[in-house]
């Protein structure tokens, strides 16, 4: 073995640069959120001031509450729908791949196109814009994020568990409730967490469907940025990034429950 060959020239240096490229901006953003100086070009001293300010900013609080409501509702709905779909597409049947294509279509279609199309729909049928519209639209693109981890979990699961339950006089519903569902929990939680993060962070769809009084946090952040950079935005952005990272790490950790450790 010549381990030196495994190292492609420059690849390590480029990789470190890429990692810096991926993470430095967010770290800079977080650093600025602790800067006491409002102009933010010069570092004066460390301060929690901007975090305290967001606690007392009613528009941020309202937007945050809206975001949580939307994300929670969209997560619950999309997880249930995704779970049912994952169970229904477990076995091969004619047209299954078309169905899966439909379920995963929000992952491929440009969000702005689907967002404006949804706007046209809601306006033309009279639902209009607002929190309800945002929530409904979020359900659609959260479904694949809930569906995929659950489906992966189901695919790994020994199909004999379900058969054994049926064999032991459980009807289909009981077999699902008592055997499949408990074994599927990590996948469901993981999918739900991902759906929650995606909904929480969504900007484009929420932007087109937001109306007066129905602003989510990302929409608030966007309009604040357009109005001029403020340290409060840095603080609330840092919080959001942190929440996303924690939730995603949690989702990955949950999904490893009950799985054999890889070699």
């Amino acid at each position, binding site marked *: 073995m010549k381990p030196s060959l495994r190292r492609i020239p420059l690849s390590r240096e480029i990789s470190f640069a890429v990692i810096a490229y991926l993470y430095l901006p967010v770290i800079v953003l977080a650093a600025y959120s602790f800067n006491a100086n409002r102009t933010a070009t010069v570092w004066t001293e460390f301060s929690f001031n901007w975090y305290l300010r967001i606690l007392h900013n009613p528009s941020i609080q309202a937007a945050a509450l809206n975001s949580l409501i939307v994300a929670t509702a969209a997560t619950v709905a999309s997880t249930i729908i995704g779970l049912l779909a994952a169970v229904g597409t477990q076995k091969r049947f004619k047209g299954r791949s078309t169905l899966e294509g439909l379920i995963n279509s929000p992952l491929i279609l440009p969000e702005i196109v689907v967002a404006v199309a949804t706007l046209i729909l809601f306006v033309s049928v009279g639902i209009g814009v607002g929190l309800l519209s945002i929530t409904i639209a979020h359900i659609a693109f959260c479904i694949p994020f809930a569906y995929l981890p659950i489906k992966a979990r189901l695919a790994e699961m020994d199909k004999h568990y379900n058969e054994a339950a*049926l064999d032991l006089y459980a009807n289909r519903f009981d077999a699902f409730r008592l055997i499949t569902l*408990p074994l599927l929990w990590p996948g469901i939680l993981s999918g739900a967490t991902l759906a929650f993060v995606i909904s929480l962070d969504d900007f484009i769809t929420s932007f087109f469907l937001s109306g007066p009084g129905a602003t989510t946090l990302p929409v608030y952040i966007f309009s604040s940025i357009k109005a001029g950079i403020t340290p409060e935005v840095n603080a609330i952005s840092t919080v959001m990034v942190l929440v996303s990272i924690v939730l995603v790490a949690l989702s990955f950790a949950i999904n490893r429950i009950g799985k054999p450790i890889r070699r």
Partner: protein
Amino acid sequence: MGTALTVDVRGVSKSFGHGRNAVQVLNDVSVKIAEREFFTLLGPSGCGKTTLLRLIAGFEDVDRGDIFIAGQRVNDQPPFRRNVNTVFQSYALFPHLTVQQNAAFGLRMKDLPREEIKRRANEALEMVRMSALANRRPSELSGGQQQRVALARALAPRPQVLLLDEPLSALDLKLRKEMQIELKQLQNQAGITFIFVTHDQEEALGLSDRIGVMNDGVIMQVGKPIDIYERPTHRFVANFIGDINLLEAKVSNGKALLKSGHLVECDVSAHSPSSSVSLAIRPERARIVKETDTEANFAGIVDHFAYMGTALVYQIRLLEGTKFLLRETTANGAGQFAQVGSRVGIKVAPEAIRVLRD
């Protein structure tokens, strides 16, 4: 063995896939299995044993034919309405339930009173000597222990039929031998019909009341172990179970005429004169004698010879070129060895020769 039927499979066919990809897996299979019988399905890989079990359990639907369990047609009954339980090859113990909860699952689903569930689950665990580990999870058990729990789980609801798909194949040899004996005892004790699938002929011969030998989606022969071994009805069955010599011959004057010109005395009454037949001879039913011995039926040259402890095994090339396997017991002392390269005579009693249609 009782005489009432528990499982009656009538003309069942099953194929998987559609159109050009369709594969016929079972072809007009019929078999009747009696109450309290230990019935074994034996056959090469892919011949349809598992599929037949899955049809009986209700995991798959038959394409054609009928399945009766205790006199009732169950074609349209889902698995949970059939009084049949399965021991899966992979055991399929529910990983999130304890041993006790696994054993109690079927009883719970039958909505029995709580007390009875507990008592009968414990009884079943007792029967397989797993009571001590009742609170463990399946992942904390060894392979043999998981196997026992799977048995207890399937036995606890006292089904009419227990289906066992290669339940012992994951165990090592020693444990397997132990479990074979236990399985037989359990079956006697529980008084349940067992339908057992195995690859292991010795296991099949030793445990079963009757064996069904399958090949390519068809049941070739059903019979007691001794019938299957001593009186195979097809070349396939003869070949598949144990070692056997098959010699080509022609019926001639109430005897069999070998290619080498030897006339061999045997029962050819079932075959028309001058039809082609195969003579099936088990290696242990033939004797080596001097070539000149008048009792010799045919002759050959010793190609190879091995001392195996309990037996001497010879490979003999017959005059027409066919290889012939011959096993002499050493029970009466090792006796004399025939030398490699020497010409010998082979003697087979007429009743030890099975004449099969080609």
